[in-house]
């Protein structure tokens, strides 16, 4: 089989193609084989994943974004954004991690490692992640907004019994 490429056609598209990546195919990711959305099955990964969720939560709040704002900026589902922040057993897919890294201006490769998508090559990253997960948990009293949300939800639970 012979392939032909028109020189003029190629020249016409040289400028618009120049700055664009072309990678495709799921095994282009340098990742640990795993079932997406399921626990990694690696107990050592869990503190990392907790740190990942906390990092997303704090980075979002630092920008004053709601979960809906984060989902919209990252082009992911709101339900997935909630799971990422609150479910340590949830491992988001590499595309989601990439989108979050871009939206929150965080380093892509480290985020893939923290989220359980890649093997952690730097042992210190694992240690720092555990430290971050432990230190970033709030010990402050509930804000008025949190208090009100809690009261309303508990009231609903009691009334719907």
């Amino acid at each position, binding site marked *: 089989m012979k392939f032909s490429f028109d020189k003029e056609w190629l020249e016409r598209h*040289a400028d618009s193609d120049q700055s*664009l990546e*072309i*990678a*495709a195919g799921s095994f*282009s990711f340098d990742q640990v084989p795993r079932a997406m959305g399921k626990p990694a099955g690696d107990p050592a990964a869990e503190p990392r994943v907790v740190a990942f969720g906390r990092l997303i939560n704090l980075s979002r709040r630092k920008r004053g974004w709601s979960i809906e704002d984060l989902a919209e900026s990252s082009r992911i589902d709101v339900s997935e954004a909630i799971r990422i922040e609150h479910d340590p057993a949830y491992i988001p897919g*590499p595309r989601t991690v990439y989108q979050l890294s871009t939206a929150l201006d965080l380093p892509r490769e480290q985020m893939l490692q923290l989220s359980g998508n890649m093997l952690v090559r730097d042992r210190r990253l694992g240690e720092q992640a555990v430290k971050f997960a432990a230190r970033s948990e709030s010990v402050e009293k509930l804000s008025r907004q949190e208090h009100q949300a809690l009261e309303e939800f508990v009231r609903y639970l009691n009334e719907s019994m």
Partner: protein
Amino acid sequence: MRGLIAYRMFGVECDGAMQGLMLASTAGHPCRIKDQKGKEQVYVDFVATAPWNSPGLVEIPRFSLVGRVLIATAVQLSVEEGFRGRIGLHALPQAETFYARNCGMTDLGNDKRKEGLRYFEMTPEQAGAFLR
């Protein structure tokens, strides 16, 4: 045609070095767009440029158009196989613009079975427009 015999590997060589690679399959990945659902197509399992041609890794890529040449190869393979230029692939996030805008493919959204990557498909009409 089934199994490994349906796979074809293509490379772009220039200045004595491999500048980009593509692995394509001619079976087992039927079309998903409504108008051509179930029809056969060429599925691009993997395509990538050499690191020195990647705008994400170097400021000035040594060769551009490597991706265009490889995707045009997939389209021509599809025509040769009687699939009229129909091709499909799962783009990495950083490459979505290339396939949506520069190749004119249809974006069918995230595919949870493929690491959440977005799935793109090209119809015969889009293939004609891409090669023009």
